[in-house]
């Protein structure tokens, strides 16, 4: 909206800088996505061919944390921060607090992710503690990237020309600031001995996901969805309500990852109670998005960005509600330790976070760069990702349930391994579709940035070299 109103060359220069930052974050994140999911395919293959690639560097136990950490901290984190910057600048009608800091942050994120990947492959794993496996000095680099981002994001919002702070920025600023605390709590060693560390793991595992990816993804929803539909969010107040309830309920539910463990029984019960309470912000948030779309669902036929965001909202609703159901002791007695939980984590991280990121990138990046991906590329990405993840989640949910029932029946353990066989194959089929869709996404990102734009740009191509003057 701004460029047309302010044709001054200074502003144009600023727009260009923002577009470059946004593009660089997106490209970098996409490279991590392709890498991380390629590792994922390799891992899926090993379930059927355990002797394939059986050296130290390619062993399952080293590749698995590489897959999860590269997905979390390479792909999703970098992509969401790039989006958060763009949304902050546009919604606050201002400029980035510091373009230089944005670049510094991007380098720090990448240095951490590269160093972490190499360390894990060499066997430097900080205790197999999920999502904090990188050796702590590398996690300090990641923390510094978060601090730089927090400073820059808050600085940008502080320079806003609007009176109010738009809701998106509540979520994105909050997410970055809270995650700084999460990272510090995870690193300090003094209260992490034996069972104490189990308690910290319970807290960390869930907060690193739910107080980082969730608020950032929700934050960009609140900007991109009204933008795509050219209508305001259904209820601003409901968004504020979901913000505070999410903040208060979410940090308490972590211990539901350790039901039936030797952690204090009351801590587990508290986690279950608040897992149910999480329905409040989840239903509130999802309803808000869906009601914003009311009467306009048909628009998805023309707009793939809207379709991606719709799947993301449904992923959020279904994945989070599933999380509540899973938290009950009666359900955990069947599903805990099975592949069902792997299905759940992909439903949430993929069905919700990935689709949210994709929808918002497709909605906003062309506006920044003036370049568009082709309709065929969008369609191919959308359908392969959707069908692939559907097969993936469904096969692991069914297989995981069979696994859990097998154990309850008292069959020899190996029976649960044998019975998972066909579901491992289906997981691989879904995984391959998902991976291929990411390759298409990478092409689309290229088209939206430095590659050939698919259609005549309505805006000035901001990234064209000759446009800088």
């Amino acid at each position, binding site marked *: 909206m701004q460029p047309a109103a302010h044709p001054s060359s200074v502003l144009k220069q600023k727009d260009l800088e923002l577009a470059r930052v946004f593009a660089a974050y997106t490209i970098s994140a996409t490279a991590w996505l392709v890498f991380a999911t390629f590792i994922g395919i390799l891992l899926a293959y090993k*379930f059927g061919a*355990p*002797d394939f690639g*059986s050296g130290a560097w390619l*062993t399952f*136990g*080293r590749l*698995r*944390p590489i897959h999860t950490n590269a997905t979390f901290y390479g792909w999703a984190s970098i992509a969401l921060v790039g989006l958060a910057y763009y949304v902050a600048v546009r919604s606050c009608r201002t400029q980035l607090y510091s373009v230089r800091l944005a670049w510094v942050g991007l380098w720090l994120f990448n240095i951490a992710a590269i160093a972490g990947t190499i360390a894990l492959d060499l066997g430097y794993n900080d*205790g*197999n503690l999920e999502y904090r496996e990188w050796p702590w000095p590398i996690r300090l680099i990641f923390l510094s990237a978060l601090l730089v981002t927090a400073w820059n994001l808050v600085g940008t*919002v502080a320079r806003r020309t609007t009176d109010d702070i738009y809701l998106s*920025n*509540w979520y994105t600023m*909050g997410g970055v*600031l809270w995650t700084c*605390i999460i990272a510090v*709590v995870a690193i300090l060693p*003094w*209260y*992490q*001995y*034996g*069972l*104490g*560390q189990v*308690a*910290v793991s319970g*807290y960390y595992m869930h*907060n690193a996901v739910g107080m980082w990816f969730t608020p950032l993804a929700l934050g960009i929803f609140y900007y991109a969805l009204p933008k795509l539909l050219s209508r305001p969010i259904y209820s601003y107040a409901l968004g504020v309500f979901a*913000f*505070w309830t999410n*903040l*208060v309920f979410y*940090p*308490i539910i*972590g*211990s539901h*990852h*350790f039901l*039936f*463990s*030797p*952690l204090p*029984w*009351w*801590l*587990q019960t508290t986690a279950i109670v608040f897992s149910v309470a999480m329905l409040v912000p989840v239903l509130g948030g999802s309803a808000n998005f869906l009601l914003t779309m009311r009467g306009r669902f048909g628009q998805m036929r023309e707009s793939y960005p809207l379709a991606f965001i719709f799947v993301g909202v449904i992923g959020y609703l279904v994945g989070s509600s599933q999380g509540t159901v899973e938290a009950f002791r009666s359900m955990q*007695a069947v599903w805990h*330790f*099975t*592949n069902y*939980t792997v299905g759940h984590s992909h439903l949430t991280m993929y069905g919700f976070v990935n689709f949210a990121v994709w929808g918002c990138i497709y909605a906003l990046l062309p506006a920044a760069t003036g370049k568009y991906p082709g309709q065929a590329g969008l369609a191919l990405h959308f359908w392969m990702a959707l069908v692939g993840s559907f097969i993936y989640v469904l096969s692991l949910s069914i297989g995981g349930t069979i696994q859990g029932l097998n*154990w309850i029946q008292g*069959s*020899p*353990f*190996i029976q649960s*391994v*044998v019975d998972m066989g066909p579901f491992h194959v289906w997981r691989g089929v879904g995984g391959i579709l998902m991976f291929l869709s990411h390759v298409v996404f990478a092409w689309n990102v290229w088209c939206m940035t430095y590659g050939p734009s698919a259609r005549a740009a309505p805006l000035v191509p901001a990234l064209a070299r000759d446009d800088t003057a």
Partner: protein
Amino acid sequence: MNKLVAIAGGSTLVYAGLALLMGVLPGITLSQTPAGPGVNPLTLIEAEGRDVYVANGCSYCHTQQVRPLTQDKVFGRPSAPGDFAYQTPELLGSERTGPDLTNIGARQPSAVWQYIHLYNPRAVVPESIMPSFSWMFDVVDKAPAGITPVPLPKAYAPANGVVVPSSEAQALLAYLMSLKQTAWQENKTTAGTPPAPSERPATTSLAATQAPSAGASAPTISGYDAAKGKQLFSANCSVCHQETGEGLAGAFPPLKNNAVVNDANPGAHIHNVLFGLEGVPVDGVKYESAMPPFSTVLNDADIAAIVNYERSSWGNHGKLVTAQDVAAERAKGK
């Protein structure tokens, strides 16, 4: 500006409070959980082995927590808070693609089996999907003094030379062997471990079965629950003796045509299952590996089912036994 302070600062303050309450404070309190009786710190080589375990991500597929649920009883007694006093990093894990290892040092104490299994799991468990850790072993012309080569089955052994464990594999073995549960303590007062569930009812199918008549020369399969026996054998015995009952030449003795298994007097057979076997030649062959005792893991009816399955499978014709026979043998003690 005030809005920014309220939203960013306020929510961060709230979050910091919750992080303290749900992360740091439980961490501080539970870090002081005293070690349970008999729970000891790891030795140097065991700690080295734990590093190998962590470096190769073993805990992504193996848990180290036994829940107070019936289906977890095969892995040991429910884990108690005092078990984890020296377990840093905590390796409780979140997935059981493979079995729980809390008590693996007691459940599978055979070093020979562990080495074969690490070198290539499919050599002992054909359906296994665990990675091979063969890079932790060296292939040499002749084993150095004091180190026994790993007796791999022919299909898995290298064409030339013998396989010996590297220092990494030796440390990993030491760590696995250190994973032994101490005797059950009532821990209800110290923390939230729930009351232990009541003992799993004994599988009754056998207890009710009449002993076959003493003079029967060929036992009838219908005299016991064959399916139950096969299932228990698969869960407890087949990783060494194999589903074929043929064992692994040079590593684990065959049960097929085994003199003790076919002996009209089942006493020795029952005794071996109850109390294990070590250093005793089997049918004239001496084996390196020790057999673990099952007296603490399985009840009389289950052991009778296993013994009967072995006595009537693979062409064996041993006299069938009853749970009472097992009870009598158990009463005699080791």
